[in-house]
């Protein structure tokens, strides 16, 4: 079990007005992502709690790509990971960003 937080500058705040969204499930090879609009508008914060140790470098690469592709400024993502493949992590993050953008809460 490993926990760490990655913070990146984000080019623009995430579009939309939703405050909170959650996608995915906590299961082996899967993950749950909670997205909340609680970070500074020019920052993206990702808190990771993972069952698989020693993949910090891959996590950093995935989060970097995500921030570049989704520009999710102002959002804090909390990940509860059950050892998902990196492509699954990226898909869930993209889904969480989109869900937050579309949310009406």
């Amino acid at each position, binding site marked *: 079990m490993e926990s760490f937080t990655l913070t990146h500058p984000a080019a623009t705040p995430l579009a939309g007005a939703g405050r909170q969204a959650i*996608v995915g499930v906590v299961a082996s090879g899967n993950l749950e992502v909670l997205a909340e609009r609680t970070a500074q508008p020019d920052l993206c914060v990702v808190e990771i709690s993972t069952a698989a140790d020693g993949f910090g470098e*891959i996590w950093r*690469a*995935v989060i970097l790509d995500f921030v570049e*592709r989704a520009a999710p400024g102002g959002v804090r993502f909390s990940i509860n990971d059950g050892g998902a*493949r*990196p*492509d*699954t992590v*990226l*898909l869930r993050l*993209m*889904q969480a960003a*989109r*869900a937050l953008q*579309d949310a009406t809460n």
Partner: protein
Amino acid sequence: MRRWDSARQARDARLSAASGLMRGKQVRPDDVTALLEAVIRPGDRICLEGDNQKQADFLARALVQADPAILHDLHVVQSGIVLPEHLELFEAGIATRLDFSYSGPQGAALARALDRGRIALGAIHTYSELFARYFIDLTPNVALIVARQADRHGNLYTGPNTEDTPTIVEATAFKDGIVIAQVNEIVDSLPRVDIQGDQVDVIVQSPTPFHVEPLFTRDPAAMTETQILMAMMAIKGIYAEYGVTRLNHGIGFATAAIELLLPTYTERLGLKGKIATHWALNPHPTLIPAIESGWVEQIHCFGSEVGMDEYMRARPDVFFTGHDGALRSNRMLCQNAGLYACDMFIGATLQIDLDGNSSTVTPGRIAGFGGAPNMGSDPHGRRHASPAWLKAGREASDARSGLVRGRKLVVQMVETFGDAMAPAFVETLDSLALAERLGLPLAPVMIYGDDVTHIVTEEGIANLLLCRGRDEREQAIRGVAGYTPVGRARDRGMVERLRARGIIRRPEDLGVNPLDADRSLLAARSIKDLADWSGGLYRPPSKFRNW
């Protein structure tokens, strides 16, 4: 004085050596091994009909029991090495040489046998290529084939699984070879004649019906959101982009997901009737919802699929059927159809290198080739135009003369990581090490990089047609290789430039909403859903039934 009919005389001698065991064309099951010892000669080329679906399993068991002092040094020329008996022939010393195409379930055992030097391997062929050699330099002396029914004249009814049989019999019977058929039953009259009796020398009723493997059934319950994401990208970025109407699908889950998105996602995109109407395809159960929704004009099949018989019988407007109502499949003709009359092949693989070459060889496993190398190649003999073919050709062309030729769309659809996190993208194919270890003159490559036009992964689509030069090609491939070591070694600046030119397209570039990557988008989410779509006509084999 040269004799011009030595093979015919030999054939007569062989058959008369077995005449004591035959009544008319029939032989009793217990006498089959003795009959094979009488009609086969050491060094013969034999085809023990085993393709990737139906198996002459009774004749295989009978041949394995032959005395190696009588039958030895046989040269096996058949498309599929599928049953354990196929390799036992080599362990027993009955056979020594092998030319084949596909070895799916025996891939690991075949690699071990090759390592131990039990098999002198000629080549791993594509189907069309092996069938072609049947008529040039690998003509069988004896063919052991399989059908559902025979009459006493030796006419054969194959039912929906006609597959390789007409091709094998054509090559054997018309070159003074001997054709021996196992059948499930001998009847007075046949529903239809698939093989004419005068081409068949011996028939035997096998004690149990022949084995057919369900190879093309993909359970929608096992489809992942990643595969659905890839399917949406392929539909928008390739099917719609090129207007692909004539195509072949491989047997992977991602292409099965495409089949299940036709009546849902793809219909909402307004593409019905504009794409995916004419197919060279095995009867994939996952295509049932699209057929039932009116997407599909017609399908020609390489073989059949367990459980699909009654469904196809009830849909003759879509499938090729005999006057008896049952499907008529033909592997060689369908391979030819897939090569020349389809604008796209899309399938999966296990490894892709930086030039786009792909292989299914992994350490300790030689799966051989299915239809992919044939259908996944640009046919240089094609001379008819279609919009999809011309658009692909224009994208690839640097010609200044105005002369443009078309290109077949050859799409590899792979998740960046396979089973046990094995990366699908590699610097060097494992196939090369295997070829060196076994002394093969040619490393097995399923699809050569210069035939591949697109690679689809969960990270995006790489359009290799638009690449100019090796460097762009390499970075386009790295640019969709995800977090594999190959993907992480990309030149990020160059990949972004390729993306700006549309050579790499991400889901967001294609307008694919990641929230749509959800199993609720599948037209069927279980095998039972497929059976329900078919109105109960599709009867899934028991291994896929869990209700």
